[in-house]
């Protein structure tokens, strides 16, 4: 019924899709699989009309379909449940589900009575227990996700796209969802199902399309695939026999700098313990949204810790704000340069010296000469490509901007440096230089905790990798156990920790 051929999509320099393809037929549930950044979500967004592809062809019933907006997509009978949800938090459940599709009566009035009935039936069908007049923002994330799916189904589509909807759902909700999906499949809907949970693929999907770095690697019926096959197609490497022993409790030489025990930060982090030693680079891996940013921000004092403890250099750490963290010699580099780290309109020099300035006393006098010397030294040492020190920071390339931010913190010589996905959208060359800088620093005794969405980067740079899954640590990789396939398996929640403790 639907065929996507040779779809290309570039976001500036980043290639999201190159020649990707996807087929879908009525009465079939197709799994769309791939690791982070492989282009699954982009494919879904192309079909939903949120992303316009640079090239390629979409055929519906053999005819060329032009999808330029959400309206076009709906008209073609395509309904989408988005991973990041498309609900309006300040509107009621009823208004949200019927948005753009309200039943009307004479005079253009919205038919409230009919709307109420439709909603009641829909909520019953999905076993959603909530007040139809409640504002969506007052509902739990899992209820919101169920509503997102219910909203898509309520459009009576020919084709249903589900983008990682089960990530926020609980076991019983998933069972309800699967029951409905089976009914819809029997009615002849074409369903595309994006997920990271392998168990679900084998439970409900008929066929699978696996993507890797923007390309479609294979189309196959699910019964013909094994878990090993899927991991192989996703990573390009055959998984070896799973490592026998867990390295969870490997003793490490050296002085403990950070000791986190059973940290909980609501609603994303659920009991994480982590240790980092002096001069070590600790990597944090995992799929998107498994609690990595919240964990790092909790170390920084930007998120409120619910329970658990953080020891820093042998003392209990209780931070009220990032400013406290800076005082304790903790540095932080965010992946979101624009929002959290840089002053794009100020000069390169001001950007480099900002941290030093913040650390000193308010009234402390700094000579222009000393500031310039300080900035020059940083630029030379970290090989930042700039025009002039007085150029605005926005004139630098993305990679150099990020080096600038890192340089600012390193110049303050913190004991612990936290980096949250620092190389997102940074080119390979700058990335390598950033790695080199970090290595230099740890050689001088700094401790680095880095989270990254890029597996290669993690394997490359980290001494040990903590893999997060649903707000807990699913595996810790180090030494020989630091392999791509084990990392991917742990990201899917199939880590040593989970196997040992049994699945939730």
């Amino acid at each position, binding site marked *: 019924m639907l065929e996507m051929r040779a779809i290309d999509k570039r976001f500036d320099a980043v290639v999201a899709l190159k020649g990707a393809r996807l087929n879908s037929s009525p009465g079939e549930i197709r799994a769309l699989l791939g690791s982070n950044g492989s282009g699954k979500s982009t494919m879904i967004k192309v079909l*939903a*009309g*949120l992303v316009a592809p640079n090239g390629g062809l979409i055929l519906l019933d053999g005819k060329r379909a032009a999808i330029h*907006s*959400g*309206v076009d*997509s*709906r008209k073609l009978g395509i309904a*989408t449940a*988005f991973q990041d*949800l*498309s*609900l*309006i*938090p*300040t*509107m009621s459940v009823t*208004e949200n589900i*019927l*948005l*753009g*599709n*309200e039943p*009307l009566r004479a005079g*253009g*009035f*919205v038919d409230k009575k009919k709307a109420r009935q439709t909603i009641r039936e829909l909520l019953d069908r999905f076993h959603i227990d909530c007040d139809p007049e409640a504002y969506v*923002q*007052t509902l*739990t*994330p*899992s209820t919101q996700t169920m509503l997102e799916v219910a909203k898509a189904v309520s459009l009576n589509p020919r084709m249903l796209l589900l983008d990682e909807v089960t990530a926020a759902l*609980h*076991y019983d909700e998933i069972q309800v969802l699967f029951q409905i999906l089976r009914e819809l499949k029997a009615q002849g809907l074409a369903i595309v199902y994006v997920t990271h949970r392998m168990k679900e693929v084998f439970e409900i999907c008929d066929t699978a399309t696996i993507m890797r770095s923007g390309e479609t690697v294979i189309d196959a019926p699910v019964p013909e695939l094994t878990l090993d096959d899927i991991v192989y197609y996703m990573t390009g490497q055959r998984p070896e026999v799973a490592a026998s022993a867990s390295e969870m409790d490997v003793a490490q030489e050296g002085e403990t700098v950070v000791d986190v025990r059973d940290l909980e930060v*609501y*609603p994303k982090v*659920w009991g994480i313990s982590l240790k980092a030693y002096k001069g070590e680079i600790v990597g944090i891996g995992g799929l998107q949204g498994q609690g990595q940013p919240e964990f790092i921000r909790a170390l920084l004092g930007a998120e409120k810790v619910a329970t658990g403890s953080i020891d820093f250099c042998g003392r209990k750490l209780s931070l009220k704000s990032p400013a406290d963290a800076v005082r304790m010699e903790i540095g932080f580099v965010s992946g979101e340069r624009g929002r959290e780290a840089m002053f794009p309109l100020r000069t390169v020099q001001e950007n480099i010296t900002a941290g030093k300035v913040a650390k000193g006393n308010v009234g402390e006098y700094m000579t222009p000469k000393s500031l310039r010397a300080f900035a020059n030294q940083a630029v030379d040492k970290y090989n930042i490509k700039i025009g002039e020190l007085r150029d605005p920071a926005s004139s630098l390339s993305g990679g150099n901007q990020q080096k600038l931010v890192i340089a600012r913190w390193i110049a303050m010589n913190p004991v612990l440096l936290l980096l949250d996905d620092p190389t997102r959208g940074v080119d390979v060359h700058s990335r390598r230089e950033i790695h080199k800088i970090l290595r230099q620093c740890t050689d001088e005794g700094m401790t680095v905790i880095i989270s990254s969405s890029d597996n290669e980067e993690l394997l490359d740079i980290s001494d040990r990798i903590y893999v997060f899954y649903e707000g807990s640590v699913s595996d810790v990789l180090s030494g020989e156990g630091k392999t791509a396939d084990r990392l991917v398996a742990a990201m899917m929640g199939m880590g040593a920790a989970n196997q040992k403790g049994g699945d*939730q």
Partner: protein
Amino acid sequence: MSQRLQQGFSQFRKNPAFAGFVLFAFTILLNAVIQGPGSFFGVRRLNTLIYTSLPFLLVVMAQSVLLLSGTMDISVGVQVALVNVVTIMTMQEWGLSFILACGLGIGAAIIASLVCWLLVSVLRLPALLASFALTYAIRGVNVLIMSVAQGKVPREFYRPYQSAIFDMVPASILALVLALLVWAYVRRTRFGTNIYAVGANPRNAFAAGINPAKVQLQAFMLKGLFVGMAGICLTLVTASGNPTQAEDYGIRSLAACIIGGLSFGGWGSMACGVFGGSFLILTQNAVEFSFRRLGVLIPGFTASTYWQNFVSDIIIFLGLLMTMVTAKGQREALRINLQNSVMFKRRAAHGK
């Protein structure tokens, strides 16, 4: 009965218009106390108060429509003056009838609104800056059309507007009722829900098959209509033309909306705007009266209008502070509720 009343009250407390209503009720009380209920609620005085403040109230309604759809226009004040000068001048120079001139006046307000829509929704300029710049452009147009205050309105039009029907109901209030009816209808159409969706989150609205620019276009048209009505009412109040009047309506209408409980984008209701606007009007009224009374009680006491504005603005500022406190309380209750239910579910899932 009392239980249902209680339930109704707790429902109303959660309503975004609650804070605005409290302020509104407070100023009614304040006026009644300092002027004496018999005097304040007297037909003549109330009539004058309503027909003079109606233009502002209509402008607040216009601004509310825009705020709900996630945008704003602070040039509404000079647009009211634009309606006034277009109406008066087309009547005076071209010899048009008053009714026809009013139609042209409303048309001018809608055209001005479309220009603002073009800048804000199509060219995506920041709404505050774009409409601020537009203020000066429209003021220029106003002065070009009418250089100095002049003109008059036929008696048979402004007299009925300023009168009270059967000496009971101010006739001018019909204009407000008309505007509220228009809004009540719009709110119950698809456009009514789309306004909220676009205001709260344009991207999600787009994903749901709504065209945000189109919804904002409709919102600007509706706002143009309300501003047009306000302009006509102002013309009937002053019964003459003045190119530089009502300029502060723009920023004051924004303040009224915020005090009433509207926030930028998709939160609140028209009632918020109406209560907020009424609060502003009644505050000013009470302060003016008090200063007049002081002048009578203390011989030789005089205070410039600056002092009056100073006092009334302080009261308005306090009102604004109060809305922040209530909004914070609402948010906090929401957060705790949500956190508890999430924790409960997660703990159940983890078997803790």
